Structure formats: structure tokens, C-alpha cells
């Protein structure tokens, strides 16, 4: 039997809308939803069926029989596994209270289920991966606009100029956004790219600045300085909708283009030329405030400066600028229900201290890495059970060894994932979730210029003994007597309940695979933006009242980043368009395309070490040594070495990825708690590593 199914890709967290053709429970074709993506998908998207077919993903629930991480697993039934987990959870609750249990998932539209479960247990301790990703950007955006980083849509397609600081937008790709960038370039728009190395994005740039690692903030401050000096900002907008402009002007007084040129290792003339372009292109200029900006110890302020530049451009709610993300309410509609509405609001304080010790951080998911402190010290109270859903902390946070030591204080570690994760390998129980092609997911609202509801429909029946997340959570909830919070027997029943207030039905999804709340982009009246900024003053707070209240400056005086000592380099990392972090490294098709990463070294630096292209090098940090192939390039700053994140996996059952390439996070020794105190993001580019030619290169062979 043939059928066509609207669904949503799950190979990465972009979650592109897709249409899947199925014949006899086999995927025969999948493509990007024609109504949104005109068929386009990335390489990972097409490799989905190869994930489904891969026997090197968990095929049934597994319970650990050896020591943690030893890899001795017993395959058990779902009933057994869920009973086992429920029993352990009950014991933890009896001894330590429900708040001793934490759960985490990936960010995005599907957090609701895991959050609802955590709250149903009576624990406030829901978390996600974001302290290794967008927290700095998020908090910077809140401090300025009163809205998080998803509060704005970047109307890149209609912009005249897109400015990217280390946001490698064409490689860490979101197909819809990539097409906007290409459309903008086709229309003659300008692209400015700032990074420590040249990238797939930078090769399309009009202006390229290869800066010294850690100096983004300096360049952003200089742009503010020069734009103010040239009176090139939107004075009306600034006057009307911002507070603290004069303080900013005073603060940036010493940060001239000439100063930044020296600091960043670029030319002052080029900065001036860029400033001229920006003033000419305003207001249709988008300064991307960063996506994964957990990098340097001033990333929060760098992101704040970039967003402040948006305000100076006066680009808010203009075509080609930053547009407020609209929700159902902006279109006179109602959004779908969330399961969390049914769960009791947690009353206990969070174990990560967020909202209590750390008032500056938004509660939502808190900060994952801080839970390790609670585990290790028992303060403010012990964490004894942890459930990670499709989230691999060992692959995303620094220093897995330090994480393991903290986790050893837990009585229960559960991993729910479609593939073996490094964290799962250390867990007590692995619950295999069905792949995105084999599972239904909750309906979610996607805010935007045209807000819409999106859904994932199961395209095929599970090929192994796996389950969808709702069934897994429901199975646990039932065993714990929490059935009332998860009253639906099937995902379909859940969908119907979610849709009740919206006035839409499941049938409305049949035509296009999604439901839109508006036919045309919804824009606010730019003359009446008062009250749209959710800061205490209702304006864009260049000087943030909240930051002042908590004792943090709105602008941190610039500090020059440390230079690596001789023989050492700053380790920076990034993404490839062929892999979604660590999740896809073992995917047969994607592994074939990119089986391992390399270490990018500046050609001249490599020359000093006697390293040639393709040689093995040792990369050393603390007691960790990794061996990796060198890739020489003129287009990386000599202080930095670069690698693609996600490799160096150590799960024997993933034969393709096993020990292939190098893991950046394992080299970040001692960095687990190196956090931006204002933004909450981890400083993932603050590790210096020693690099030397590896003894693996010796030509001498003992064999004949």
C-alpha cells in the first residue's frame, strides 16, 4: 500500500517540515514540504531512512549489568524496564523527595512532555542543553528587549545587509534560512562575515574579517562607536524606543575603529568602509546576535552589543530587519494546549539555583551544568535520579570525566534516545525511542511572521522494539500513580485535546501538513511599539534596570583575551552541514560522507611544528591526548586550531564512529563550570591545547 504523510524531519533540531512517501511500511521518498521548502532538504534529512535501517541503534530496552560505562547490557522488555525505573524513582522520592529527580530534553517545541513529567513528579528540576548553546544570546536579548532570542524573526530575505559574527549560517544550516540568505545575495544584498577562520558562509561574503579569537566584542563596540560618531544611527527610533543611549555613547568613547583594528588584527580602513555600508543600508540591516554563542567569557556582552546595533539601525519591525515573532494571539486565535498545564506548578527551589542564587537567569530550563554541582555537593539538596531525553550531556558539555564523577552520586541514570549516546552508554537504563519517521510527536506552535501549528506524523511502524516518547512517559506516569496528568491513551487523543481551544481540527492539517493562523505576514504598527518590549521600562534598555538591580554592568569594559602560551593554541569548534552535532556521526550515509574530523592549523604555525597536510598530530589538554589528522590552511588565525564538533565517540556498538576523529569537549578539561556569570553560557572556546606532531607518523616500521 502506498501513502503520503506530512511530517517533520528529526535528524537535527531544525525540524524541517517534510512529506514522506511510504510503500509497505518502507520509506520510498522524502522531501521538504513543498509549501514551505519547495522540496529542499539537507543531506542529513535525506539520510533519515538510513537511520531507521541502522542496526547500530538500540533495538530494545537495555539494563546495565556491569559497572557504569562498561558496556554490559541486558536486553529486557518494556514492562520490565519501566517497572525497574519506576521502582528506583519511588525509592528516590521516598528517601529524598521528588525534587531529587531531574530530567532534561533538547530545547524547542517538544520540551513540554518532559517538563510536564518532571513537574508531575513534583520536581522543579527540568533542564535542557542550552547552557552549551544559546543561553548567552537569550539572556542578552532579554536584558535589552525583554524578549528572548526567539522573540524576533530575522527577515533576511528582504535585508540589504546581513552581519554575522561567527554565525556560520550556511554550514550550521537551516534550509529555510539558508534560502533567505541566498535570495538576499541574489538581490545584491551584502554579507559581512566575522570569524577566526574562513567558512562555507564566509566564502560568499562581501566583507570578511578574520579576527583574533575572542575579540568579537571589541569589533562590535567599535562599530557602535563609529556609527554613533558618524551620527549614522536611527535617532528617532533611539529617542523613542530606547533608554540609556547617552551612557552607551560615553562607554564606547575609547573603542574606535583604530583601536579595534589593533585588537582584532584587522584593518581600520575596512571597519570604516563597513560602517559606511551599514549606514547606507540601514534600516534593512540584520545583525545576527549569535546562535550557539557559548564561547568566550564575554560572549554575553558581545551578543548584547550585536543586538544593540540592531536597535541603532532602527531595524525593529521593518521589512528586512528584526520582526517580532507573532503568536496565535496576534492573529486573534488561540494556541494549542500544553500538557504542562495539567501538571502542578513546582514549589521547591531549583537545585541549579536558577531564580534563587542566580536571579539573572531565566527559570525555564535553568542551567544543566549547575546540576552537576548539586550532585557533587548535595547542595542545595541532592540530585539522585536523572533522565535525559534525546540529549547527550557528555557530547555537549565539557569534560565528560568530571560529569561522570558527579553522576556517580546518582542512584538512577536513564537515557531515552533513538541512538546510543555517550551519556546513554554510562546510564543504568537505555530506553530506545522510535526514530522520527516511526513516531508521532505533540502538536507545537511555531511563532513567526505567520504563526503556524506543526506536527510530526508517524510515517512507518517502528522497525525495532522502540516506543514514542508519549507512550514512554505515560508508561512511567501510570506506574507512579500520576496517570491523571497524562490522561490520553494515544497521541491522537492528546492531539485532539491540544487542538480543542484552537478551533482547528486534525483534518485542517491534511492539506499542507501544517495550519497557519494568518495568510499574510503580521506586522505591528512601527509607530506604536510602546509596550511591546517586555523590559521594566517597556523600552529597549541599553542600560538594563534588571542587570543593574542584580549588580551587573550593562556594558563590561573590554578585556583583551589571553594569548595562548608558546606551543599552545586556542581550541575552537564548529559544525559541518553533513552532521548534526554528535547525533549523526554513526549514520551510515553521513558517516560515508564525513567519517571523521580534522584539526585545522594555520599553515605557518604547522610549518614551525614540522607538520604537513595529512600528518597526525597529538592534541593535549591535561591528561587527555587525542590524535587527529592535520588540515593546513592559510585562512585560520594562527592562535586558533579548529575542529568539527561531535566526533571521537567511544561507543563500541557504533562501529563506524568508534574512535573516529577527535572530541573537542573531552579536551575541555576543568571547564565544566567555566560559565559566563551574566549570560549563563559555558565558555567553550576558553581552552588552550598543546599541539605537536604525533609519533604515529614515524615512517620506520617493524613489520617487513
Amino acid at each position, binding site marked *: 500500500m502506498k501513502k503520503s504523510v506530512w511530517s517533520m524531519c528529526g535528524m537535527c533540531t531544525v525540524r524541517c517540515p517534510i512529506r514522506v512517501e511510504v510503500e509497505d511500511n518502507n520509506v520510498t521518498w522524502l*522531501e521538504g514540504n513543498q509549501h514551505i521548502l519547495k522540496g*529542499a532538504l539537507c543531506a542529513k534529512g535525506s539520510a533519515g531512512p538510513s537511520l531507521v535501517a541502522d542496526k547500530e541503534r538500540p533495538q530494545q530496552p537495555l539494563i546495565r549489568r556491569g559497572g557504569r560505562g562498561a558496556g554490559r547490557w541486558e536486553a529486557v522488555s518494556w514492562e520490565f524496564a519501566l517497572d525497574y525505573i519506576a521502582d528506583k524513582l519511588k525509592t528516590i522520592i521516598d528517601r529524598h523527595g521528588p525534587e531529587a529527580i531531574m530530567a532534561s530534553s533538547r530545547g524547542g517545541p517538544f520540551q513540554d512532555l518532559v517538563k510536564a513529567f518532571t513537574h508531575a513528579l513534583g520536581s522543579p528540576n527540568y533542564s535542557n542543553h542550552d547552557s552549551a548553546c544559546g543561553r548567552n544570546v537569550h539572556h542578552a536579548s532579554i536584558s535589552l528587549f525583554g524578549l528572548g532570542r526567539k522573540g524576533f524573526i530575522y527577515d533576511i530575505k528582504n535585508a540589504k545587509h546581513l552581519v554575522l559574527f561567527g554565525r556560520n549560517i550556511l554550514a550550521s544550516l537551516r534550509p529555510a534560512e539558508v534560502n533567505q540568505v541566498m535570495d538576499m545575495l541574489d538581490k545584491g544584498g551584502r554579507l559581512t562575515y566575522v570569524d577566526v577562520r574562513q567558512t562555507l558562509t564566509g566564502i560568499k561574503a562581501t566583507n570578511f574579517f578574520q579576527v583574533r579569537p575572542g575579540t568579537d566584542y571589541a569589533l562590535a563596540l567599535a562599530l557602535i562607536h563609529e556609527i554613533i560618531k558618524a551620527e549614522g544611527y536611527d535617532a528617532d527610533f533611539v529617542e523613542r524606543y530606547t533608554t540609556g543611549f547617552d551612557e552607551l555613547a560615553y562607554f564606547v568613547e575609547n573603542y574606535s575603529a583604530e583601536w579595534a583594528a589593533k585588537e582584532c588584527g584587522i584593518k581600520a580602513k575596512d571597519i570604516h568602509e563597513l560602517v559606511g555600508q551599514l549606514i547606507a543600508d540601514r534600516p534593512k540591516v540584520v545583525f545576527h546576535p549569535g546562535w550557539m554563542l557559548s564561547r568566550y567569557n564575554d560572549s554575553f556582552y558581545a551578543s548584547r552589543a550585536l543586538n544593540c546595533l540592531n536597535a541603532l539601525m532602527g531595524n525593529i519591525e521593518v521589512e528586512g530587519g528584526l520582526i517580532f515573532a507573532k503568536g496565535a494571539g496576534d492573529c486573534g486565535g488561540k494556541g494549542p494546549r500544553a500538557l504542562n498545564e495539567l501538571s502542578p506548578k513546582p514549589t521547591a527551589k531549583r537545585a541549579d539555583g536558577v531564580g534563587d542564587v542566580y536571579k539573572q537567569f531565566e527559570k525555564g530550563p535553568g542551567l544543566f551544568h549547575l546540576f552537576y554541582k548539586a550532585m557533587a555537593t548535595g547542595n542545595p539538596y541532592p540530585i539522585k535520579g536523572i533522565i535525559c531525553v534525546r540529549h547527550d550531556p557528555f557530547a555537549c558539555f565539557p569534560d565528560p570525566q568530571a560529569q561522570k564523577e558527579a553522576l556517580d552520586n546518582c542512584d538512577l541514570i536513564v537515557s531515552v534516545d533513538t541512538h546510543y549516546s555517550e551519556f546513554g552508554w554510562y546510564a543504568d537504563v537505555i530506553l530506545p525511542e522510535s526514530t522520527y519517521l516511526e513516531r508521532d510527536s505533540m502538536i507545537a506552535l511555531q511563532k513567526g511572521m505567520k504563526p503556524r501549528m506543526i506536527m510530526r506524523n508517524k510515517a512507518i511502524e517502528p522497525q525495532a522494539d522502540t516506543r514514542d516518547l508519549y507512550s514512554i512517559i505515560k508508561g512511567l506516569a501510570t506506574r507512579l500513580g500520576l496517570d491523571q496528568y497524562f490522561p490520553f491513551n494515544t497521541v491522537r487523543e492528546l492531539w485532539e485535546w491540544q487542538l480543542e481551544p484552537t478551533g482547528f481540527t486534525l483534518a485542517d492539517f491534511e492539506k499542507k501538513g501544517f495550519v497557519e493562523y494568518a495568510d499574510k505576514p503580521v506586522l505591528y504598527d512601527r509607530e506604536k511599539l510602546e509596550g511591546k518590549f517586555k523590559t521594566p521600562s517597556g523600552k529597549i534598555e541599553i542600560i538594563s534596570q534588571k542587570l543593574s538591580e542584580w549588580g551587573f554592568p550593562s556594558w563590561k569594559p573590554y578585556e583583551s583575551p589571553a594569548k595562548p602560551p608558546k606551543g599552545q593554541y586556542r581550541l575552537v569548534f564548529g559544525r559541518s552541514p553533513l552532521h548534526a552535532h554528535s547525533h549523526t556521526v554513526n549514520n551510515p550515509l553521513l558517516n560515508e560522507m564525513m567519517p571523521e574530523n580534522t584539526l585545522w592549523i594555520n599553515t605557518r604555525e604547522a610549518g614551525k611544528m614540522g607538520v604537513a597536510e595529512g600528518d597526525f598530530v597529538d592534541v593535549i589538554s591535561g591528561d587527555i591526548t587525542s590524535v587527529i589528522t592535520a588540515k593546513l590552511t592559510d585562512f585560520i588565525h594562527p592562535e586558533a586550531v579548529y575542529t568539527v564538533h561531535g566526533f571521537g565517540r567511544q561507543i563500541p556498538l557504533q562501529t563506524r564512529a568508534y574512535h573516529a576523529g577527535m572530541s573537542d569537549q573531552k579536551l575541555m578539561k576543568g571547564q565544566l563550570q567555566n560559565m559566563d556569570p551574566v549570560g549563563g553560557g559555558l565558555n567553550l572556546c576558553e581552552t588552550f591545547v598543546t599541539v605537536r606532531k604525533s609519533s604515529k607518523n614515524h615512517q620506520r616500521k617493524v613489520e617487513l
Partner: protein
Amino acid sequence: MNTYTLYLNSKRCIGCHGCVVHCKANKGLPVGPILCEISHEPLKSVRGVPKTEFKFRSCYHCEDPFCVTICPTGAMKKREDGIVYVDVPKCIGCMACAGACPWGIPQHNPETNKAVKCDYCMDRLDAGLQPACVTKCTTHALKLVTMKVI
């Protein structure tokens, strides 16, 4: 007479290699055979910006294909519209075609032990669709061009 060619707008191509995987997924190919490739020259600085452009190659669908001439079983064929393709049931997997092709374009499929190559997704073309790599190209940079005799 060749009717079709694949044209890459290299200004739009971002080198993501999506096309390569779209192609493999469409034909259900295992690890091994790769029917199209994306390549580029080393970066060169152009007015301060290190630049390069991507090139796409699948099969040239030659006017007088050596692979067709050498094939001992008549499995390698050229259609009237110029598409050079493998008539799978006839193929014995000897790979003489790959040896004869100046670019070694026909690939061995280890699962079927037969040759496989770019056939402009002729099953899709015949069904009124575009090739897999064209339909799903991440940036819509790749186009199937139908050539006309002027």
C-alpha cells in the same frame, strides 16, 4: 542527441553535499557507490575575501559513450533522449564500463553486484518529476536543463 543537462548555479550552491545524499537515498544505495560529486578549487583571496566556487559533476551522458560500446551484455544503453543508463537485469557487474569511461563514472553496487550510475533519475523524469538532486537541493541551486536545437 542529448536532451538534458544538470546545471549548477554556483553562486547559490553552498557545498553542503545534500545532492550527493539525496541521490543515494533516492536510489537506495548502500555505502560505496556515489553518483554525483561536489568539488571546489582551493580558496583564493579576492579583494580580501578568501573565495571559491563549487562544481557539480554526475555523468556527462556522452554522445558516443565508451561504456556503452564496451559493455559485453548490452546492459549499458543510451536512450533516445541521450540518457546513458544501466538496464539492470542485463548487467553482470563486470565493471568494464567503469574502466572504459575516462572519468570512471559507473560505480559498483556491492549489494546488487551490478553497475549503477547517474541516469538523470529517468524513472522520475518519466513520471513528470525532477531528478532527486534537483528537487531536494538545499538552496535550489541545481537545475535540470532541457536543451533545444536552435
